[in-house]
């Protein structure tokens, strides 16, 4: 269950971050859907997603190529990826609509922006999964800055320890923000983590001066 709706962050930061999921429904339309999903995958890939992957292989950011993702589509096939601009997301949705393969399509992002895209493409959205925040013993959670990166993996596999470790290295000038953004991406195997957004989030950690490090 890719909980892409629980990405934390400001509206400013979330507006360049969209997650696309194309899913066959087990027991309803999964049979014989592999070829349909391959077609969808090709169109999606042509629009250069920020990240794409699969449960079976891992992501392009960890060294998997699209052929591997294509070959590994299983009997309940699905496409998972992220885009960094509304324009690209819109272009992909337009193609998927034209392809008309009958697979379920969800987009996660700022609700207003997603509904705006649907309107432009004359698509009537079916339903919505609203994020109603985090409850319970929230005092035990790491800082909001860490949560913004951690919650980009919908399966909770990016540990706060990894994010903190990478932030520390960026501060010490031992890692670039891009390298940190990619390293943090690796545990997110299905490919909904957005490295472009991560890089922007990490840019606030400029390397400290030598005297500050001492």
């Amino acid at each position: 269950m890719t909980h892409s709706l629980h990405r934390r962050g400001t509206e400013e930061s979330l507006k360049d971050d969209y997650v696309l999921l194309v899913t066959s429904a087990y027991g309803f339309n999964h049979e014989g859907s592999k070829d349909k999903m391959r077609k969808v995958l090709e169109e999606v890939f042509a629009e250069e997603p920020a990240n794409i992957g699969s449960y079976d292989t891992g992501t392009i950011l960890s060294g998997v190529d699209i052929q591997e993702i294509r070959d590994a589509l299983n009997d309940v096939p699905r496409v998972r990826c992220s885009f960094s601009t509304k324009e690209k997301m819109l272009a992909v949705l337009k193609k998927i609509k034209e392809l008309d393969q009958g697979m379920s399509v969800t987009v996660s992002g700022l609700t207003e922006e997603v509904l705006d895209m649907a309107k432009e493409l004359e698509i009537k959205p079916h339903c919505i999964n609203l994020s109603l925040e985090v409850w319970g013993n929230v005092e035990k959670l790491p800082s909001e800055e860490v949560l913004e990166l951690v919650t980009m993996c919908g399966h909770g596999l990016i540990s706060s320890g990894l994010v903190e470790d990478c932030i520390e290295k960026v501060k010490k000038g031992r890692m670039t923000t891009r390298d940190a953004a990619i390293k943090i991406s690796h545990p997110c195997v299905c490919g909904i983590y957005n490295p472009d957004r991560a890089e922007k989030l990490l840019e606030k950690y400029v390397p400290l001066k030598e005297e500050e490090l001492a």
Partner: protein
Amino acid sequence: MRIDQEKCSGCGICIPYCPANAITIVNKKAQIDEDECFECGNCSRIRVVRCPKKAFFEQPGLYEGTRAARKFFSDPMTTHSVTKIPGRGTEEVKTNDVTGRVVRGQIGIAIEMGRPCLGTNMEQVEQMTVALGKLGIEFEEMNPLTHLMEDREKGTIKPEYMNEKMVSAIIEFGIPVSQMVPVMDVIKEVAKELDTVFSLDMIYRFEEDGSLPIVPVLEEMGIRVRKNSKVNLGLGRPVVTR
């Protein structure tokens, strides 16, 4: 998960990756606290941790005992044996246009216990499911957690699973809109007693005119609806029109 002590060089690369903080260096070798380990598989993946000594291995018999629950709830690279859905076992809003699980007049609720960051054990999950059981909730059949229940009406978990821990476990059910207020009140009450956290979702079918009348009701109850969400665009077939 286990680490072959002969192979491990104690380099420590794997330590920050573990979402359970279960890996430590003892006598210059990495060791896993098996009680804390979620069996998420992160550390053993060749494209994630890339252990230079390929020292990680799954314990024999992992899929046969109750510990398998850790694996199925934590590792998206497994397919759950009950729901046959890859990932962690439910499709909630993702295929609702095809399955029609949540129709107009109803809402779907998902409570993802342990998420973000803290993980959960079954005891905390049961705190929530038992409280909901008292309201007569019918838990979702296509959700793996429901299959670990001893008594689905009461919401009790099979005792043999009580010591299992996982990245998260999703409690999922549908209710009529009219039941929303008492259900949310119970969820809010249990939240106060928990040692972990949960992320709360609500699935709602757009009205014919595209509106979401549920949002102001939630806000009136003091429940914040975040600006980002997941929208099912209704491109699946057969589209469920109810």
